[in-house]
């Protein structure tokens, strides 16, 4: 670090040259804001975009202008709050009234009724599908109530493209504290004491990683933010990056200061256009305020961040492959016997953390390691964001303290299984996570417990399955995904996954051999022991846990040529239950192969097995459950 220049009281336009100036700016932003003034915070995140939220946002602006309310109400474009399936979403502050499934035509009514008259529009409130209870406030909805939104809370309050919004919620005060009140070693000590573990999947203690990189001998060191989230159904990092990029940047700058790095990269997938745009805007704004770049806040510390866009290869989430990709090489991993903290990007000491890990840092610095480590379990501290998807009533992005029971996540936050069906398993940790059955639903969700039952934390994807899910088919899906995403460098991953997929396809087609289960287990062991990187070494988890907990399903496929869940087409037949079928004919027209013939009203329809392609359309259409799967 260079010598500290004297703080310049006459800062160039906008640039902050001391913590004092930062606090003065914050005070002036807050002074201009009336906490009692209503604010419509509408989600314009990626999920809600599909619901036309941009038009809704415009409509609010127009309506506010029309009713001449510009000076008495604010409108703010926030990003993802997690309850995407209920979009478009908005919260009206300061009361916290939460409206869901808002449509363009609801806009005038919301302004007139709620903003002007202070009344609630009942039909836009969330109704619990189980209890039918209605909730007016976001905080009371079971989906939100049982969460602890340490990182995600700001997503519903700030416009990520406004640095003022981030400053208004205390942004960059952790950075000021670190730069002017803490030595780098103290920062590392604090992060170590907090017990924070990497949120990208590995769960390595963050403070230790920082220390190794700090202690590595080299003049140039890099810090990297991994935003290459690629798990099917996962959008934790995306939502944080879209909704609160400054929190990630602030974490990175603090990390860089602690490690002694002056150059950083955000590696982010190209398929996340909004996240790319928002983090680039955030970098520009932070630089213009002197919070990033040279002589940060007049401290003499300098740190630059560049954004690098990935092409969307799943394997590039693996740190060494990511670094190869950053260097402009093919994204292939290498052995990590020499750690990246010693030789990483361009063979220099490099510290890579996931988006969520970085976003935790400002909180730890501001509220202290004691506070942070009071949340969570013995070995896993803080909160974790999960994308809860699949067959639960409430799907979405959730943040819970480590150690919450899996059952409370699935039934409490998720509201249980859809359509009153039976729970079967939950798959955690992305495509190479394992299936966790009913018997383990009471485990406390943390790094070690998930591993103990054969799954993993991974990045935090959580896919819930019900009785209609075939576990062999599901394992086949994930193995297929991983086979496609394998870089192909090492033999066990490339050839092993290919053979695994062939075996699983045979089993689901009714051509499995009795010895196949044993062979799968042997292949899985070799993947685990011999693969080059974590993609390969964890790839067998879905197969291993499916065999461990649902062996009977494998055996039913192989020995009885039967798919108990009724999923695997070669093993099932559809038939009409004559006693139940009133001959309404609703299924006749939609059948793509005209396999169903209408006879007469009150006479059951006839299904021609020769023509049936087992698409399941009739099964889905029939409200009377007169179509059977065998």
């Amino acid at each position: 670090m260079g010598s500290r220049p004297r703080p310049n009281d006459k800062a160039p336009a906008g640039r902050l040259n001391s913590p004092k100036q930062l606090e003065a700016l914050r005070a002036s932003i807050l002074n201009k804001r009336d906490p009692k003034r209503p604010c419509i915070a509408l989600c314009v995140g990626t999920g809600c975009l599909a619901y036309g939220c941009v038009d809704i946002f415009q409509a609010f602006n127009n309506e506010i202008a029309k009713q001449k309310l510009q000076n008495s109400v604010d409108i703010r474009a926030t990003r993802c709050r997690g309850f995407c399936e209920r979009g478009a979403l908005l919260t009206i502050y300061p009361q916290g009234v939460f409206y869901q499934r808002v449509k363009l035509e609801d806009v005038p009514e919301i302004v007139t009724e709620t903003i002007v008259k202070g009344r609630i529009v009942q039909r836009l409130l969330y109704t619990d599908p189980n209890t039918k209870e209605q909730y007016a406030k976001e905080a009371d909805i079971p989906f939100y109530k049982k969460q602890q939104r340490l990182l995600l809370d700001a997503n519903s309050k700030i416009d990520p493209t406004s640095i003022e919004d981030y400053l208004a919620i205390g942004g960059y005060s952790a950075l000021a504290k670190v730069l002017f009140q803490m030595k780098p070693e103290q920062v590392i000590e604090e992060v170590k004491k907090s017990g924070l573990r990497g949120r990208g999947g590995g769960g390595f203690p963050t403070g230790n990683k920082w220390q190794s990189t700090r202690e590595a001998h080299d003049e140039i060191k890099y810090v990297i933010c991994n935003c290459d989230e690629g798990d099917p159904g996962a959008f934790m990092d995306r939502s944080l990056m879209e909704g609160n990029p400054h929190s990630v940047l602030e974490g990175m700058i603090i990390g860089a200061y602690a490690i002694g790095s002056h150059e950083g990269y955000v590696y982010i997938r190209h398929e996340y256009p909004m996240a790319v745009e928002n983090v680039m805007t955030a970098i520009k704004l932070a630089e213009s305020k002197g919070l990033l770049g040279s002589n940060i806040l007049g401290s003499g510390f300098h740190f630059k961040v560049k954004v690098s866009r990935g092409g969307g290869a799943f394997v590039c989430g693996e740190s060494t492959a990511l670094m190869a990709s950053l260097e402009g090489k093919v994204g292939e991993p290498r052995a990590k016997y020499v750690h990246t903290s010693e030789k990483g990007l361009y063979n220099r000491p490099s510290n890579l953390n996931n988006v969520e890990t970085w976003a935790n840092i400002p909180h730890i610095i501001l509220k202290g390691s004691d506070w942070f480590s009071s949340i969570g379990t013995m070995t896993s501290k803080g909160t974790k964001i999960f994308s809860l998807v699949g067959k639960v009533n409430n799907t979405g992005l959730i943040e819970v303290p480590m150690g919450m029971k899996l059952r409370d996540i699935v039934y409490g936050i998720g509201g249980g299984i859809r359509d009153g069906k039976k729970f079967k398993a939950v798959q955690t940790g992305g495509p190479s996570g394992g299936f966790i059955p009913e018997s383990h639903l009471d485990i406390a969700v943390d790094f070690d417990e998930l591993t103990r039952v054969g799954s993993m934390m991974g990045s935090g994807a959580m896919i819930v399955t019900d009785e209609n899910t075939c576990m062999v088919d599901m394992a086949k899906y994930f193995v297929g995904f991983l086979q496609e995403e394998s870089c192909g460098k090492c033999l066990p991953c490339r050839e092993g996954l290919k053979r695994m997929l062939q075996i699983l396809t045979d089993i689901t087609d009714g051509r499995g051999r009795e010895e196949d289960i044993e062979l799968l287990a042997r292949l899985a062991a070799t993947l685990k022991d011999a693969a080059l990187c974590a993609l390969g070494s964890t790839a067998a988890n879905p197969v291993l846990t499916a065999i461990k907990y649902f062996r009977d399903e494998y055996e039913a496929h192989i020995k009885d040529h039967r798919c108990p869940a009724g999923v695997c087409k070669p093993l099932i037949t559809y038939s009409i239950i004559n006693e139940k079928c009133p001959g309404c004919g609703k299924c006749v027209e939609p059948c793509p192969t005209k396999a169903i013939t209408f006879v007469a009203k009150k006479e059951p329809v006839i299904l021609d097995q020769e023509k049936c392609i087992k698409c399941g359309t009739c099964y889905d259409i029939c409200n009377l459950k007169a179509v059977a799967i065998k």
Partner: protein
Amino acid sequence: MNKLVNLTIDSRKLQAEEGKTVLEVARENGIDIPTLCYNEELEPYGACRLCLVEITKNNRSRLVTSCLYPIEEGLVVKTGTEKVVANRKMLMELLLARCQGVKAIEDLAKKIGVDQPSFKPEYFEKNGCILCGLCVRACAEVVGTSAISLVNRGVNREVAAPFLETANDCIGCGSCVYVCPTDFIKMEETGDTRTIVNWKATFKMQKCQKCGKNFAPEKQLEYFRKKLNLPQGFFDVCPDCR
């Protein structure tokens, strides 16, 4: 000379220079570890995984690839544990299923004790390339031409010249042919031409002005002449006649 490090491989107490890999030290001491993607002239790559060994450190044991693992003080290595053997056999089964009829693979399988893979024979392949990357690395690291590379991902991975067309940067030196462990890369010489079949590249050979033998492709000689800053006409005679 680097610092000496004490380690144990298969109960033999050994000393070797820091910075070496487990495989290097094992081979120097006559301990056999099978490999397919390793060549001492090239950077270790760790793709075939056959060189797996079991190491014990701080009472924890795990499998590592010996071609990449740097030796360290007090390291205990075992090259033939049950776990190592089981994994090596499965790797061999995977290779055999890919490379039916490839002699080098069949010979190695026999040595490792694998007869036929446990997979369904209908899925067996007759692929001569094991994707060890030796040719690509020799071309890049030794020759410095990078005329070929590994293209595509996962099961579609293959070695190829750019755009799967003729390798324009190939100088016809034949290093890839020489280094290929399965003889998959073919080179043909007729009259005064040499063809590297796999890269669809044909070269005119240089005739020795003394003995009249076609001794190397003109393009290769010109490449080395320029690279080593040798005078015009340096390669007019072959090395034997010089």
